[in-house]
């Protein structure tokens, strides 16, 4: 296990690469999904409000 974490002495170079990749992929996905959810909620609320006013 320690051997694996040590990455043949290159831990300081290998792990930051994988960390950055996961941070970037996860970060963009999280921001995009949260923004979409917020807009879906806002749109639903607006449409519900319109239907109440319409009749």
């Amino acid at each position, binding site marked *: 296990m320690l051997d694996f974490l040590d990455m043949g002495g*290159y831990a300081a170079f290998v792990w930051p690469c994988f960390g950055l990749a996961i941070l*970037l992929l996860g970060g*963009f996905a999280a921001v*995009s999904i949260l923004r979409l959810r917020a807009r879906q909620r806002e749109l639903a609320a607006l449409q519900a409000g319109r239907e109440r006013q319409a009749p």
Partner: protein
Amino acid sequence: MHRFANPGRFLRMTDRLLPACGVLTALCLGIGFYLALFVSPPDYQQGETVRIMYVHVPAAWMALFVYATIALAAASLLIWRHPLAAIVARVSAPLGAGFTALALATGSLWGKPMWGTWWVWDARLTSVLILLFLYLGLIALQNAFENPERGQKAAALLALVGAVNLPIIKFSVDWWNTLHQPASVTRLGVPAIHSSMLWPLLIMAAGFTLYFLTLLMLRVKSEILAARIRALKQAATARD
């Protein structure tokens, strides 16, 4: 292509495709990271640092792929004035900038132990740095105008002019002397990379590509909803 330029139809299509694409992306990236870290062998020259390749190379490929997508969208925006093309270009630019930054950062982290330096001003590295600046320029232009349509057009022109950088990046390792190694996967004939490293790399690349396409659909959908919200709010203020 024209059939999908209709926002309503695009939304119906993405609603059907998004769940499957999300699952497939997670699967590919999960298997890719597992193979890259646990299964693929260390290189006989580079040792464990070769694992950096599984992040670095797909990120660099995506940096080019996303820019090509933006250039295509820019062309169809200028020629056919598709409203969806402007949205595609706008939501792709930050993703492309992210992939380019990742390629540069991981390249630097790979260069230090293998070349003995974080950075050299050679053709491959410099042309990719220019690509990052092009992305940042696109993002800045897209948001620089009061009238968003003018910003989109200006950015589309920059995207098309900047597309000349793509072949320069691709062939920089052949045209100039560089520390960077030449292409080992996308060359004619047999790839110069053993299958025990090629497969993890290809699965990672598929995962990165699916990730971009899934997020592209999701972000375009998000922008279409934002446009509907704006329209509804305008209608509401007009009524009051």
